[in-house]
């Protein structure tokens, strides 16, 4: 019993990590309206920005967060200019291939610039764990896991608030739903989309710091596996819905850990993808209500 509960807790924490990266992903997809394969590399850029900040100015988390937000924000801007802006009216596969190309570009440039080896990130945040005793079960939670979990909840609530209530957020949503209509009511579509995309990327960068601290390392190739999981979580949540994407991430994390509990860790991805495919077959738009993503759905690939 204790074992099962601990595994569920593990699943939730793992899911929280997926959720964290999925949130940034769904902001980007929501605002730009196109799917991206560069996101994992953006996360990696954020992690490296933090790594070099720690190297240069010492363990200053605030500075590191600023640095990686800025770095990812800028790279996000480049991605926007290169891969999206020109292709808003083109078939989707064109910008998709562009993002694949850009991801290859960043991955290899990173290996040239940062070197191919894995860099250690340790002792940034104290490695502590808490043991809770309840109903005769002892549950072990790491401090970092709690941090990630809290951050996911705060950011999904805050971002939802930003999108629902603020003027800027409403403009972002308008752009994400119908670019032509948004243009007609006087929204600067290109700039809004670009800033929205960059915010999503910046958020991905910050997620990158947490990831690298959580796993004590960063490497130029760290992005690809996370980007697949972010992509899965986001698809599960209906691509554009931030809270649903976070929920999707949590679900994938829990399902994976349940799967590992009954079989082997080698099947991790089979559980994740299998679950996702089954959900999509039952409900073709993921968790989100089907009306919400008509736009994404109806666009021809």
């Amino acid at each position, binding site marked *: 019993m204790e074992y099962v509960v601990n595994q569920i807790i593990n699943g939730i924490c793992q899911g929280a990590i997926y959720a964290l990266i999925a949130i940034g992903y769904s902001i980007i997809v929501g605002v730009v309206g196109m799917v991206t394969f560069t996101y994992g590399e953006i996360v990696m850029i954020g992690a490296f920005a933090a790594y070099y900040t720690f190297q240069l100015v010492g363990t200053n988390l605030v500075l590191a967060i600023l640095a990686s937000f800025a770095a990812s924000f800028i790279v996000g801007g480049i991605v926007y200019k290169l891969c999206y802006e020109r292709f808003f009216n*083109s078939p989707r596969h064109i910008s998709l291939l562009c993002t694949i190309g850009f991801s290859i570009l960043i991955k290899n440039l990173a290996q040239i610039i940062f070197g191919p080896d894995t860099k250690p990130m340790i002792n940034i945040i104290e490695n502590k764990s808490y043991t809770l005793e309840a109903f005769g079960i002892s549950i072990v939670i790491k401090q970092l896991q709690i941090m990630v979990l809290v951050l996911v909840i705060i950011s999904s609530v805050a971002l939802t608030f930003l999108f629902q209530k603020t003027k800027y957020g409403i403009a972002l949503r308008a752009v994400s739903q119908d670019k032509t209509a948004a243009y007609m009511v006087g929204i600067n579509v290109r700039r809004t989309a670009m800033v929205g995309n960059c915010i999503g990327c910046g958020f991905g960068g910050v997620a990158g710091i947490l990831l690298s601290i959580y796993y004590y390392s960063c490497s130029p190739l760290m992005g690809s596996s996370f980007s697949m999981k972010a*992509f899965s979580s986001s698809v599960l949540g209906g691509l554009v819905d931030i809270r649903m994407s976070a929920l999707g991430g949590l679900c994938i994390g829990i399902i994976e850990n349940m799967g590992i509990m009954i079989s082997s860790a080698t099947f991790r991805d089979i559980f994740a993808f299998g679950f996702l495919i089954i959900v999509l077959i039952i409900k073709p738009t993921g968790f989100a209500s089907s009306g919400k993503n008509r736009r994404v759905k109806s666009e021809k690939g």
Partner: protein
Amino acid sequence: MKKVKNTIVKYKLFFILAGLAILLLLPLVITKSVYMRHVCNVLIFATLASSLNIINGYSGQMCLGQAGFFAVGAYTCAILTTNYGWSFWVVWPVAGCLAALMGYLVSLPTLRLQGIYLSFVTLGFSEIIRIIAQTWTPVTGGNMGIKGIPFPIIFGKELFKPHDYYYILLATLLLFLFITSRILRSRIGRAWISIREESNAARSLGVEISRYKSMNFTYGAFWAGMIGAAYAPYVNFVDSSQFSLDTGFDALAMVVIGGQGTLIGPIIGSVVVTVLTESLRFLQYWRFVIYALIIIAMMWVRPQGIAGASNSILAGGKIRRSSRKKAISRNR
């Protein structure tokens, strides 16, 4: 321009025969088997990209998991020839059919899905196939893969040299082109294209889009399986890392760079990409940087690909103003 086109049309047969003669005699010209291997790689990727083009280019579905079907073909061939001693010539069509069956099974649930959701399911399928290949050790050899896949034997001659194997791969590609061009000229091909262009209209004309989409998927998967089966003995061993998503993405890049929705496009794409990545090998990381830059530049300059027509739905094309005016004036 028109003149050139007319000449080509006029001497079509001549050009085809000349091209065939060059292709058949190529191994005599290229003596080094290293270069022949590159030529063989081009042929393999050309066929794989073409099979993807069937799905992406002709029926407008967005499949990202072609590596999965490729893997099914390759593993079927590897397992049956190595562990069960079947002849390659028997296994070959079997592998194609098994991949086609997979394609059919994947197409069933995806009929309800559109756009990126469909892409995702194909992508997930490809990953699942790869992980199964990686973990099902008793059958697929797990991480060790399957080694020593026997080379096909024809008239008592073992085809282990790239110079000989070239003909198998060439035959596959030509057979593919022959059959596919015939299908595209029939109502089946037209139905696929009509689904790509305007699926609602196609339905209103009685085109059963579910049936044709899944037929399209099955057909595309069949050829991916066929070339997969031909690929396994060529490289002599298979392991799961050969069928990662990157393989699928490479095929996609070839299709798009060459030109979606044209028969020649994926072939041009695979020539360009293979020659590029092979010849820049000495640049190490920089060659991928250059490869990536070329993909992006290509999408900027010629989104329809080298061979694609600019006025096609696949290029996001707009109807050309000039020709439109002409039509209007002619109508009056």
